[in-house]
């Protein structure tokens, strides 16, 4: 009898210990998820501030080049009264999708499509979907020149060259409101603002993940 009671007490103690261990494991998992959210938030915040700094310097370059172009071409040739107010769609647009990101849930994701061909069903422009790990793509494909025997360009290279030509035409069309001959500084300003635009799309993505992580943290 005493032995049975002892066994029962022992089993009860084992059950309560198992329950306590299970509870502890669940708490550790919850803390782990919280830590993940906090890390995600801090990473996004750091990325946001770094990218804002980067866009700040790119915009400064653009304003400086624009001022130089205005100085060489004249104030009357570069001002807002020359802007085209006839019907025309934007050449650079965005794709917005809802993306599932780990513990953050669904987060809006912005992808930039620059210099898409107007009036066509499918955009011929380059897709600059930005990831934090990927570099900002250069609009002009820069290929190394190799002396010696040159190989025939493959079909893929021809397609890339054709797309680059289209982009050059779109770029020139965008500057045509300022006249036929424009200062190289104005072209430089255009490239600076294009780069700033790509960075701003990255900032928009970083902002979305930061706000999502923030909401997760403050939910508790």
């Amino acid at each position, binding site marked *: 009898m005493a032995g049975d009671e002892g066994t029962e007490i022992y089993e009860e103690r084992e059950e309560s210990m198992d329950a306590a261990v299970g509870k502890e494991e669940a708490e550790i998992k919850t803390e782990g998820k919280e830590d993940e959210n906090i890390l995600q*938030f801090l990473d996004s*915040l750091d990325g*946001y*501030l770094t990218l*804002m700094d980067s*866009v*700040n310097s790119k*915009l400064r370059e653009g*304003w400086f080049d*624009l001022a130089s172009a205005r100085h060489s071409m004249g104030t009357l040739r570069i*001002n*807002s009264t020359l*802007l*085209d*107010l*006839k*019907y*025309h*769609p*934007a050449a*650079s*647009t*965005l*794709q*917005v*999708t*809802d993306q599932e990101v780990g513990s*953050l*849930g*669904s*987060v*809006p994701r*912005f992808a930039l*499509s*620059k*210099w*898409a061909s107007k009036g066509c069903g499918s*955009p011929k422009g380059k897709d600059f979907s930005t990831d934090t790990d990927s570099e900002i793509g250069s609009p002009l494909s820069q290929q190394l020149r190799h002396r010696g025997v040159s190989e025939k360009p493959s079909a893929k290279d021809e397609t890339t060259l054709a797309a680059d030509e289209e982009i050059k035409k*779109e770029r020139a069309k*965008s*500057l045509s409101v300022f006249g036929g001959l424009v200062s190289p500084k104005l072209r430089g*300003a*255009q490239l*600076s*603002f*294009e780069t700033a*635009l790509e960075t*701003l799309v990255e*900032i*928009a993505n970083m*902002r*979305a993940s*930061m*706000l*999502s992580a*923030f*909401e*997760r943290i*403050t*939910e508790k």
Partner: protein
Amino acid sequence: MAGRAPIPARNSALIAMIADEDTIVGFLMAGVGNVDIRRKTNYLIVDSKTTVRQIEDAFKEFSARDDIAIILLSQYIANMIRFLVDSYNKPVPAILEIPSKDHPYDPAHDSVLSRVKYLFSAESVSQR
């Protein structure tokens, strides 16, 4: 985000701008400008003659449009309509405050950073 309605996917969404002349001209050169059949643009050039009411109306219009995904707002202009910007909390269109030529970017005034700085305040730390 818990409890949020899913965002509909959009192709060819626009970038709207409310900024000074040089910033607008620069981004228009980057191909962002759009003029529709009714001659409505996706940008507002703010100068000395632009009233706060005009800026408010433009912000409300751009934030209500389905075809706009990002609104670029110079920070000094955002400060003029700060109550409107801070009370905006939709994920799309995303509001991005950018510096201008004469007014550098100040993180202390950024509406997104103001929203999250609560996490770093002494009150929130003492509650944990």
